């Protein structure tokens, strides 16, 4: 199927071929190019046909190949969960071509298509509500296009004070036409026009519209939830995101690969190491690197400790939101131990950038294994303590049982992954399905829920912490000796003591630090099981030292879309519980 483009002419044959070959090894990983017009037909068949059942839409994204014609490539990544298969669909279009929307097939296509529209200006025909999602409403232009102006406000130093373009000039030069003042003034009016008039309808029907957030302790980040209420009951839920959008994907295009790594810590900022790992794996795939085993084991160790650290934040804060104040102090006490471990290994408590392309930043220092062993020793009892506080606590059960239910079908259709999906009843974990970084050498279980309510999600994450600890213990006990990174100075920096002895090492240090290393042309995506679900980077390289496109598949982005399904019919007070149980991180949602 390579080189073939699926059009209206051959789509039926193509689908028949797919059905016939469904069980073969060739069908495991496929990559097809199609004409945009056949997308909807193909998507429906892929989703509905029982042989194929590509029921999970992982991501929709685009790349601007400015200078080529057609200019944009739009990429869909589909999984068939029952059959563990992956399918990439690509289509090339020009700026003025519309693509059929698949939002009525996979629910998370809604926001994914809105983001592609926002960032690239590509329109999706039939989308229920195609408007900007990450950039603010008055924004002009599509930021991820290669010809979007990069203008920046000049940073003030002593040497240029007095010389800087004055604020008003900057605003008019770079933000010409974007009427922020008018937007702020007329905000209400604009908001009711947005949402395809939906809000206006609801108001007419007598619903009370209340904003929960963007500034709210229980929204776990800067999220605006728009509630349509009948008294205390939630009739419907809308969301406004993009408050924490800092243009990370765009920024990465101006940085060399090692520098872009430091951006990744800040995306899912509660589990920074997990993002470092996802980025490194994608770039290492393009480079064709084999990471030494010791480095892989240490990566696993840290990724699982990060999972625990992240779940401790989740546990403490989501309990706090419902009113259970006590667990918070205890979970953060244990988290401190983990932050100390991260600081020991990298000098940083949170944004470690410790997992690097090629391996690790440095070998683990003395004291690391002891610190980890100490944590392994004390943590199971602490976990039991948390259980004692909550699991059979009648108030806790009352506030979480049967609240925020998400059926498995809905979950899959929304592209939900991670603990939320597993709580809805499916034992699907990237570490098991498509193992990476030596995860297949570890024994661990995947906790699964039954009802998909807040309580099940609580239980799933609690058990995940125990399982993560189990992995860490195995990694500590079986840690191989040897290299902790690929020792190739054309990729990684030489040890400092070589810099005053070796001319070659000095030259390579100079160039790798300043210009970066070139990455072969191509694109790659590696999925990882982040703390919130499927997390991965889709990286496109043009052969240079900076990523041409760095797209993050964010678990929270898709999962958050299922919020209305969980919240409808509940009461306002339940929102805190439901939001807490989703455990989304807005840094990951907005990037």
């Amino acid at each position: 199927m390579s080189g073939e483009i699926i059009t209206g002419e051959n789509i039926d044959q193509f689908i028949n071929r797919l059905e016939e070959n469904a069980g073969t090894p060739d069908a495991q990983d496929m990559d097809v190019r199609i004409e945009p017009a056949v997308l909807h037909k193909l998507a429906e068949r892929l989703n509905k046909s029982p042989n194929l059942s590509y029921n999970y839409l992982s991501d929709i994204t685009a790349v601007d190949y400015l200078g080529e014609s057609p200019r944009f490539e739009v990429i869909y990544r589909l999984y068939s969960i029952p059959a563990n298969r992956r399918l990439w669909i690509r289509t090339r279009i020009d700026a003025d071509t519309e693509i059929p929307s698949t939002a009525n097939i996979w629910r998370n296509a809604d926001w994914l298509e809105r983001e592609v529209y926002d960032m690239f200006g590509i329109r999706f025909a039939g989308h229920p509500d195609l408007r900007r999602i990450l950039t603010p409403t008055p924004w002009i232009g599509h930021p991820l296009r290669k010809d979007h102006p990069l203008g920046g406000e000049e940073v003030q130093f002593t040497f240029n004070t007095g010389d800087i373009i004055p604020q008003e000039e900057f605003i008019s030069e770079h933000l010409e036409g974007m009427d922020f003042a008018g937007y702020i003034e007329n905000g209400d009016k604009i908001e009711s026009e947005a949402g395809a008039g939906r809000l206006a309808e609801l108001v007419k029907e007598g619903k009370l519209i209340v904003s929960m957030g963007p500034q709210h302790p229980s929204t776990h980040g800067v999220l605006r939830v728009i509630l349509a209420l009948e008294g205390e009951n939630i009739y419907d839920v809308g969301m406004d995101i993009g408050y924490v959008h800092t243009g990370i994907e765009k920024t990465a295009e101006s940085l060399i690969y090692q520098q872009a790594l430091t951006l990744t810590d800040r995306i899912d900022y509660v589990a920074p190491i997990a993002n470092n790992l996802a980025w490194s794996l994608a770039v290492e795939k393009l480079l064709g690197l084999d990471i030494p085993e010791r480095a892989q084991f240490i990566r696993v160790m840290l990724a699982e400790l990060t999972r625990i650290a992240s779940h401790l934040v989740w546990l403490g804060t989501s309990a706090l939101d419902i009113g259970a104040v006590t667990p918070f102090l205890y979970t953060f006490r244990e988290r401190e131990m983990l932050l100390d471990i991260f600081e020991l290994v990298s000098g940083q408590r949170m944004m470690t950038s410790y997992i690097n392309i090629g391996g690790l930043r440095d070998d683990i220092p003395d004291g690391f294994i002891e610190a980890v062993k100490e944590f392994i020793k004390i943590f199971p009892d602490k976990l039991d303590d948390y259980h004692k506080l909550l699991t059979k606590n009648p108030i806790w059960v009352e506030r979480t049982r049967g609240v925020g239910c998400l059926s498995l079908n809905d979950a899959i259709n929304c592209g939900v992954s991670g603990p939320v999906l597993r709580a809805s009843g499916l034992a699907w974990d990237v570490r098991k399905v498509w193992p990476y970084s030596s995860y297949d050498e570890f024994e661990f279980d995947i906790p699964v829920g039954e009802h998909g309510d807040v309580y099940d999600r609580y239980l799933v994450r609690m058990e995940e912490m125990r399982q993560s600890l189990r992995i860490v213990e195995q990694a500590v006990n079986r840690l191989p000796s040897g290299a902790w990174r690929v020792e190739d100075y054309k990729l990684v920096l030489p040890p400092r003591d070589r810099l005053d002895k070796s001319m070659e090492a000095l030259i390579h240090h100079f160039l790798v630090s300043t210009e970066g290393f070139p990455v072969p042309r191509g694109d790659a995506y590696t999925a990882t099981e982040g703390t919130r679900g499927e997390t991965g980077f889709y990286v496109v390289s043009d052969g240079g030292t900076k990523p041409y496109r760095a797209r993050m598949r964010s678990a929270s982005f898709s999962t958050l879309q299922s919020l209305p399904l969980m919240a409808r019919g509940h009461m306002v007070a339940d929102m805190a519980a439901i939001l807490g149980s989703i455990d989304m991180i807005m840094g990951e949602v907005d990037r």
Partner: protein
Amino acid sequence: MADNVTLTIDGQTVTVAAGTTILEAAASIGIEIPVFCNHPKLEPIGACRQCLVEVEGQPKPIASCCTPAAEGMIVHTKTPSVRQMWEANIEFLLINHPLDCPICDRGGECPLQNNTFAYGPRDSRFDYTKRRYKKPVRLSDRILLDRERCIQCFRCVRFQKEIADEPDIQMFSRGYYDYIDTAPGKEFESQFSGNTIELCPVGALTSAVFRFKARPWEIQSTESVCVNCGVGCNIRIDARNYREVVRFLSRENPEVDDGWLCDKGRFDSLFINDKNRLQAPLIRKDGRLVETSWDEALETAVKIMKDAGGRSAGLISPKLTNEAAYLFSKLMREFGAVGCDWNLERASADAAVKTAEAFSEGLFDGAIKDITSSTLLIVYGSDISSELPVMDLWIKKAVRRNGAELVLIGCESSKLAKYAKTVMPENIESVVKAIESSKSSERVLIMVSQRLVELSPYGVEILDSLKEIARSRQPKVMMLACASNSIGMLETGAVWGKPGSEIKKSILDGNIKALWVAGESDKYAESLARVDALIVQDMFLTKTAEVANIVLPGSSFAETSGTIINTERRVQCINPAIRKLRGTLTDVEIFARAAVKTGLNTISQTSEDVFKELTQTANSFAEITLDKIGARGVRLEAKR
């Protein structure tokens, strides 16, 4: 055919002209072979051994830079053994190379670094002591030599010998003890020495002026043109952090500068960074110059000139752009000035008129690249080596490589005299004689100084003779321009009324009450000081400015955009590399604002608008567009 050769490189066939080296043949099909000593403008010498390739049937590796391609040759550059050779050669070069990258100006734009990363070893096996030299060695006030970094590629020595013919530096000693030095007691005097900095593939020869000023990634480069002489060599202006111009580099224009830049253009223009640059208009109040606003300064200047009316005059520097000259001229006409010129020597207005005629009649059709395609070169009235340095290189190329004959008329003390077959007395008869005694088959290029044609009392006579010669023998004729845009002054109509010498006489007789001098105000300081009311537009407080009534701070050529016309009548664009210095305005802005204050409200305000107007009003600019000018410029054509 005997003229072409077909060979195979890495499985790809390519046909090239006989004599093409394997290296060149490979480059023509996009196959890159690393080099150090090789350079497209220098004779290959096979010194560095980096370019070794495998040629089937040959027992040893072949240096592709100095081996001509042969029919049926099969060449390999991608085999493991070739890659091993490349890696090993770099290893050899790095053995004695000092660990200077952190302090070496070349770092970040260094062929040795780049080739090491692409083809060299990852780490060093050398455990011994490297050879040491005292460093840096001051070869001149512009060039510093670091002998430890030198990889003995001989590029610098070859340039001085083959191109500049000023062999001020040589390689001494033998083997890896080779080192560069000047003759005892002498400095690296050549006025082209700066080119060796760009040629040197490592940080051995570096600019003393640029030393430690910036790293390449801090630099923003702008394409522009040098304004130090009439050649108009294409340059790259490098600024650091958008703020400060730190250096000037060559920017090859094969038809203007052949890739070279003289030391004036490379080093002398940094005066624009001088702390003493004026940053506010000055006005004389109570006998002293005090700072004032642009409005007051311009209003007063306009009033002074208007009041003087027919007893005012305008003097403009021939380095200013066409757009500035055009507006200045309009402004002076508005004041009713008695004359407008770019010098105080012009003998008669007739010569200017006739020269303009000659331009439009296509008399001056010679191009710089005609120098190397001519067999007889006649240089009349100009010491090219000091007035238009890079033309000196062109002429040397023509004489030494192509066997052209050089006849020098006047300027017998010029550096070019030693290449001349004959040196004749400086008058137009010599030109006629030189032509008449030449064979009719010669391709002749007559280069005649603008000073003689436009400014001297003999201008009309010279032009008439040249026209006569042109009719009978059809030589190419090129004007040797006095300055970077002295030809543009005439083409934009900025020369009219009383000629320069008469303006000067009027000044000395006390008949010029007001004079606006724009640029180079210290040139005629003595004369100008005699004017009652002076308006001085300059970058510095020159002697003339000190006695002025109004001083207007101008921007430099590196802060301006506009067009200029070089000696072969090529229109080129200068572009701003940095923002205007705070408090200054560009010449066009000054003239436009002043014009508005005189009541000329519809005057074009920007360089681009003035340029458009020029294309609509000036005949010679009629076919020119900014697109056509592009990065290389376009010559004004006029058919004979």
